[in-house]
């Protein structure tokens, strides 16, 4: 664990259980509606310009007919030592006080340096002005800004929900409870494959699940110290 004990305040993080993920992509849809992610159309998706803050990678295992699919939800890893942050010339990609890997849209000039340096390929670029086909503009979230053309964007851990929950907790005069605050993807996951919470609190659900022997971090050898812990598929069930 890379959590530095001396630091106060929450350290938001996520645990994704690959064993529980069924690949239903409810998280993808929820993220899209929560964060006003534009629709680029079939042609642009074919050109590899899909705007997805979270996507579910599918891997086939084994030979026909014994084939199983394995799904890995992949989103911004909110790295502790984020490669995208050091290269941005204007601080549009920047580490927030509570350790979130923030993207400041109105500061972004679109050099795309961050996207090159992100080994997870989770940063997406607005190649055109955002658009939402007819009924979709009715469900835009007023808490989230729409991003203009030429701006890099990515998963924010639903920072608008985090800030709202923090404000509510302050008004209430009580600290945030574990599980009270959930990003859209976590909220919509039917199998609870995604868990969100505070790594700084040793009793939170994320801290407990992250202690599992199945815990891994993606591309950990690059030294990025990702904030998302994956619980890899349990091979024992295949033996049984």
């Amino acid at each position, binding site marked *: 664990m890379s959590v530095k004990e001396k630091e106060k305040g929450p350290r938001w993080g996520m645990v994704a259980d690959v064993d529980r993920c069924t690949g239903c992509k409810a998280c993808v849809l929820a993220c899209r509606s929560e964060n006003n992610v534009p629709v680029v159309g079939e042609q642009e998706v074919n050109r590899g310009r899909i705007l997805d803050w979270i996507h579910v990678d599918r891997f086939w295992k084994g030979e026909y007919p014994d084939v199983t699919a394995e799904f890995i939800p992949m989103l911004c890893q909110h790295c502790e030592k984020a490669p995208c942050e050091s290269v941005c010339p204007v601080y549009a990609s920047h580490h927030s006080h509570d350790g979130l890997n923030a993207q400041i849209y109105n500061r972004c000039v679109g050099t795309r340096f961050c996207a090159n340096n992100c080994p997870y390929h989770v940063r997406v670029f607005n190649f055109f002005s955002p658009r939402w086909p007819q009924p979709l503009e009715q469900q835009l979230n007023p808490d989230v800004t729409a991003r203009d053309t030429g701006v890099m964007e990515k998963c924010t851990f639903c920072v608008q929900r985090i800030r709202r929950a923090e404000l509510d907790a302050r008004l209430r005069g009580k600290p945030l409870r574990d599980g009270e605050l959930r990003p859209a993807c976590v909220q919509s996951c039917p199998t609870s494959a995604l868990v969100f919470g505070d790594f700084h609190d040793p009793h939170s659900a994320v801290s407990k699940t992250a202690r599992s022997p199945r815990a891994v971090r*993606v591309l950990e050898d690059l030294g990025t110290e990702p904030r998302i812990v994956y619980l890899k598929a349990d091979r024992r069930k295949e033996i049984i």
Partner: protein
Amino acid sequence: MSFKAPDLSIKQIYDEVMTTVLGPRPKMATLLLMIILAAIVLHGVFQFFRQSFVGLGVTGLTMPVYWGIYIATFVFWIGVAHAGALISAILRITGAEWKSSITRIAEVITLFTLPAAASFPFIHMGRPGLFYYLIPYPNNRLIWPNFKSPLMWDFFAISTYFIGSVLFLYVTLIPDLGTARPNMKGWRKTLYTILSFGWRGTAEEWKRVKEAAALFSVLILPVVISVHTIVSWDFAMQLVPGWHSEVFGPYFFVGALYSGVAAVFTVMTLLKWRCGFKDLITPIHYDMLGRVFLALGLAWAYLFFNDFLPGYYSNEPDKMAYFRYLAFSHPYSVLFWLMFLTNFVLPIACLSFKGFRMSTVPMFLLSIGVNVGMYIERVLIVFCGTQVYNPLARNVTVYVPSFTEISIVAATFAGVTLGYMLFIRAFPILPIWELAETKIRQTVREIAGKKVYYFKSGE
């Protein structure tokens, strides 16, 4: 054969150099070429504005390849821009007497290619209107640019280099402008009067010009080395395995000098043919600069192999995936081996022979070949580095430059050519005073029945 100043009087040197400025009006064909070049530039400007309004979607850029032909051309132009610094600064410091004919040719290449290069980071931005966010200007939100980003270093290095090389060119141009001013008519008279800064040719003024030139040639050296090293750090300081190479700094720097010298050969041959500098640009210049060319070619090859061999020997998976993609995958393998031929095999084989170095047409063709190879090298590095790096096995699309990108790139090539053609019409392209000085300093001595030319140093 040792170098010897041209067998012309100083008046003849003056007349020969000034033919480009004071000579007859350009022919119809030249004017037509200029109009075509201007049209290409205007089309590029139009495409750039269209791209700014519509969005970068009009380019071929897509998911893993976020840097495309714009950045490749940027690196290429920065490389060619190293011509000026190499010829003027390094040859001036080492006291090479033959340099006088080619110093300004090289400096003017820098004058036009550096703005062409510097325009690309802006063209490539998603929101070019906000480029001033990169400038550390005082603002009410107290936000500074990120000095940790290699792009910031780029910004400072390129602007320093541009200011330095323009001043360098200008300082050495002043004596010629002052000398030529009385013979000028019309708009040239006004221009020369303003730019020559009241040059009278007193001993004090000469002393200052020579001091400034000597000072500039020393001061600009670290800037030259840093500029292309920093451009290479844009790549080398990333996690992408094809780019993350320790040898990139010297490799890019040597590559830049290599393509710069090639560009000097191309331009000086064209000038020799079109403007008739037969006595001023001689085969000895080709031979001397050809030796520099050969040395740079060998250095480039050394660093090129150094980039790949350690990864190959240790069979490092990521680096080998990159190498295999370059060398054996369609369509890049064709380009890779073409680059290998024009940058390594041909130059080193041909330039080793003095007969080849002294012949104009083969050297002209070789210089173009080397620059084509250097352009391919940059294209391969920029395109393939991110294209092949896919650690999480995502579906990726292959990047192909779009019409918009190619028109903008073509516009810079046309712009540089047009700028050079206009400069030749306006200003003397060879430094008259340096040629005259070489002529005056030359003395002949007979040693064992052979004439030996040498040059007196000092005031």
